């Protein structure tokens, strides 16, 4: 991975995060560190709290308690400039695409560029959007509106919007849901490319194939609690966490090539709370 890019990519940490909606506890004492420049996959069944965890990590929902740290700094205390910098260096793929219905595909994908690079001329914006849409496999007219597209196409546009400004941190909520196998393979190759560039990627999914192909780190969430998080093979070794169908399928495929030394140690939960944890993972 290019060292320069790796240094830019921030580690993302959730510390003792509690989030509830009404009387319903959605996130229950979440403590997890997503190391910089690596791909972390959170597996969990529907309703386990994956999406909320990802939204809390991105500051899209405000937890009642706890901290979200981006490169060691508290996200919820960011001033306007810091927040803009964070948004300029991060991308988010929503589970249900969340495209802006009142405007074209071109404007949807161009928005991050226009917000963070207002001096870019229209032609550059057009060309960049056109290139990224081709890259994710979108082949329809850019002047269509989201309602004119299938769910799968909307998902591709949503992914294009999240990566068009080349973020150093990418959060993806079920990125291959609604995609056919070819399209999912296409997105997988893009993820591979982003990993090589040193992008910090966090994926919430129940797709075992995605975890198997891309996860440097694996987490399991159930009922709003992180049951395990750490190096892919180590988490698979903890058979007591094989609670979901996805995990069972992963176990059936067996381990991969072992853990790198620098990855967080899941046998020592304190490592995730330690201020040194992020440094270990980025060295």
């Amino acid at each position, binding site marked *: 991975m290019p060292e320069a890019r790796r240094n830019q990519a921030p580690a993302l940490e959730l510390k003792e995060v509690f989030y509830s909606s009404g009387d319903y506890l959605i996130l229950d004492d979440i403590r997890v560190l997503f190391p910089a420049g690596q791909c972390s996959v959170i597996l969990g069944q529907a309703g386990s709290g994956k999406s909320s965890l990802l939204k809390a990590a991105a500051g*899209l929902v405000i937890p009642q308690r706890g901290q979200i740290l981006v490169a060691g700094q508290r996200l919820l205390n960011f001033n306007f400039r810091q927040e803009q910098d964070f*948004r300029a260096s991060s991308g988010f793929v929503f589970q249900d695409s969340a495209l802006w219905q009142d405007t074209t595909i071109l404007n949807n994908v161009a928005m*991050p560029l226009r917000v963070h690079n207002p001096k870019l001329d229209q032609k550059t914006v057009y060309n960049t959007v056109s290139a990224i849409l081709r890259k994710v496999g979108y082949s329809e007219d850019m002047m269509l509106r989201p309602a004119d597209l299938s769910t799968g196409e909307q998902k591709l546009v949503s992914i294009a919007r999240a990566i068009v400004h080349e973020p150093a941190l990418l959060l993806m909520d079920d990125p291959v849901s609604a995609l056919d196998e070819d399209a999912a393979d296409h997105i997988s190759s893009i993820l591979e490319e982003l990993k090589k560039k040193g992008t910090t990627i966090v994926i919430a999914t129940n797709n075992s194939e995605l975890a198997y192909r891309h996860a440097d780190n694996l987490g399991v969430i159930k009922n709003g609690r992180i049951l395990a998080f750490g190096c892919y093979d180590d988490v698979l070794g903890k058979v007591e966490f094989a609670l979901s169908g996805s995990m069972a399928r992963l176990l059936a495929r067996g381990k991969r090539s072992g853990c790198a030394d620098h990855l967080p140690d899941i046998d020592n939960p304190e490592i995730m709370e330690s201020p040194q944890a992020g440094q270990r993972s980025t060295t």
Partner: protein
Amino acid sequence: MLETIGRAVRTRIQSLLYALGFFFNVLKETTRFFRRKQVAFKVLILQILFTGYEALTINAIMAVSIGAALIVIGSSLLPQFGQSQLMYSILIIVITSELGPLLTAFVITARSGTAIATQLGSMVVNHEIEAYIAVGLNPISYLVVPRFIGVVVSMLVLTVYFNLFGLLGSFIVVQVIRPMALSEYLGGLLATLKVSDLISGLTKAFIFGVIVSVVSTYQGFSVNRSSTEIPVAGIRAVGQSFMLIIIADVIVTLIQYA
């Protein structure tokens, strides 16, 4: 029983404080709107076109109709009591100070207030608001402030148009029914017209614009998850706007005549 009442009161107070916080946040972001590099100017232009320009026809028809009716009624009844000169006073007070801003506000609430509340409500349900935050756009400054400024500007402009159509356009209509010399009509109007009447009308227009835009955007954002909440938000936006507009109208009128 006491616990239920206490909980209801606490919820009401929390809602009121939240609404006040929302209002002050809108004011704060409005002061920053023209200083920041914004991609929201297009939203502002579209809002002015929808709220101001597209409502011009219905506003003009209302103004001309009401103005003509007042002239016809006034010129028929008032001479019987020897009070012909009062027609101009009634016309100016009713058109510029009362019905102009009030009816314009009702039209804007019915057209734009419901549209704003339901549109924002739909965006909340579809997670489009979260998508704006994710790309670095503050929903208050990108979605609310352009609508706030757009509705207030449109309200002021439409009120001026209502005055023009109500006072001058109606004269043309009246010529068909009861011919009257233009010089006589204009002379009577200008002799009676006071700056305070115009200021009062425009003050009301400004306040009504603030009420409609803030209430509608607030109700739009109050939608949580379900699409069935969207029409309810629209209904609440209209009901609360009408109620606050009438209360504000009474307060401004009391201040003017106190």
